[in-house]
């Protein structure tokens, strides 16, 4: 059942409340995926603005966060897909975008892991981040990624193996 159309003002208030409660988490997720803070913020902004446009069409407003998460993940994939094609999204090497303070906070070992994660294929990267950063179960990650549970399992396994290989080579 489609909800009754709400006045835009009410819709804005609800979406703003959702943004205030959850935007930071989404930006962190997008930042881990893309390595670029402005891009991460833009992706989350776009996702919430998309939510604003589609609010009336949402069958279940309770799934608004799932919608936003899907938009952010799709946006991260798009960033990688178009990184060399469209100028809107440009990914930088992590070395370029980290301040001296960030480098000190992260430490060499964590920087190496994050750089390796960003070199993974998109599906493996998503699976690894959702499973080990957000601590999602395989079922939850499958739902967020829109794939089967088995796909999450294999992507996670391959991703971890690739990370181990990259980190070993980096020594």
């Amino acid at each position, binding site marked *: 059942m489609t909800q009754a159309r709400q006045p*835009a003002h009410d819709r804005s208030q609800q979406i703003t409340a959702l943004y*205030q409660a959850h935007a930071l988490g989404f930006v962190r997720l997008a*930042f881990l995926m893309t390595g670029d803070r402005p891009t991460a*913020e833009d992706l989350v902004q776009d996702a919430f603005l998309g939510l604003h446009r589609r609010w009336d069409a949402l069958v279940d407003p309770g799934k608004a966060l799932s919608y936003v998460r899907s938009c952010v993940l799709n946006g991260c994939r798009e960033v990688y897909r178009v990184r060399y094609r469209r100028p809107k999204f440009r990914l930088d090497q992590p070395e370029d975008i980290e301040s001296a303070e960030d480098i000190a906070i*992260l430490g060499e070992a964590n920087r190496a892991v994050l750089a390796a994660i960003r070199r993974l294929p998109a599906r493996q990267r998503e699976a690894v981040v959702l499973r080990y950063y957000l601590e999602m179960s395989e079922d939850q990650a499958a739902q967020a990624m829109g794939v089967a549970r088995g796909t999450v399992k294999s992507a996670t396994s391959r991703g971890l193996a690739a990370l181990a290989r990259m980190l070993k080579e980096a020594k």
Partner: protein
Amino acid sequence: MSTDDQMSVEDRVRAATRAGASLINDVRPLDAPAPVRLRRRPGPGKRRWASWGGPLAAAAAVAAIALTLVAVRQGGSPAPATTGTGTAAPTAIPRYYVEPTYDIHAQRSGPLIVGDDRTGKAIATIAPPSGLAFNYAVATAEDETFVVEASVPTTPYGAPPFTWFLLRVTPGGARPYQLTRLPVRLPGNETYSRAFAVSPDGRELAVESSPGGAKAKPVTTVGIYSVATGVQLRAWTAPRQVMTELAAGHTLSWLRGGRQLAFNAATGPANRTQLRTLDVTGTGTDLIADSRAVFTADRPGMSSCRSLQVTPDGGTAICSTGVGPDPRSGPGCANGGLAFIAFSLTSSSQPGRVLYQYRGACADAESFTLWTDASGSAIIGMTRINTASRGEKNTFTVGVITGGRFRPLDIAKSVPADGYADLTF
């Protein structure tokens, strides 16, 4: 054996992702959904500031362009302020404007509309050349002359190759306009234009670009091209994508009689948007090392700028602000949250000088600077003000701001109001 060696890969991923996430501790407020149609427009046009006081500058612009193009005639002169059949406009306010129309719902570019703000009427409606779509326009030193960018029509942005046309408006002539292709081409087959600006003397086109293609390095280049020959005369590069996008797109403008370029970039602390100036007479080729930051746009305690315009004398940055739907995100309209504020670039200790502040009620609102004179004493601004307490009832207005007042201009009815932010004066 190190601690890292003893940790499993899973644990290393957990530790690294949490450490990485901890770098982000705040986010900017949610932007208002924009009923204003905003594409990635370059900085608003920079013109007239040289030509009103000095016909030589305008003549030089015409002469330079005429080296290759017969479209521009020496006879073109700035429109006298007192002429026209419509509402009188103050001296030095541009009379003609262009609007590259765009249907946001169909995501399709439309014709270019040329209008006259003295009569409130459209002078011409120009269809794009076959196979191309108009993207943006910038003004030149002469009121009747614009440079228009076109590219292969794709959504939501144009695709290479990018092409520029000289648009010469001839009101009252047998043909109301002349459109002539310029010889400027960006290097590479997949290079995207992101902003452009015409030098005050009309001889050079500055283009900010990024390469495309699967193996391209994500560099930013600002190149200067000869309008007459299309040859790239100078280029500065940054080894990564440093440009930031304000709501109104990029700032790229010529300053100080063509001796400097201004652009915005995320290079400051916490990647805040900085306004930087580049001395084009210098010898360097590094976009960041050879430029210097003159203003930080989104510093703490300051409303974020929807548009950031530098006055042609290089002395002032004009920030236009907005009011979001979240009352906690900043001052509302009644408290002056919608404003045009001038910041001195020569004295960082001076607070912003309010050029105009809307004090009425609103649910949300935004503003953009479309044109400024040499020093920012007169500007053309655009506002969208939603006054409905529930739902949306937007009023779009374009007007001249001077002496703290906002005097609406008469824009042709064929120009969609939600596209006013793309008007080029």
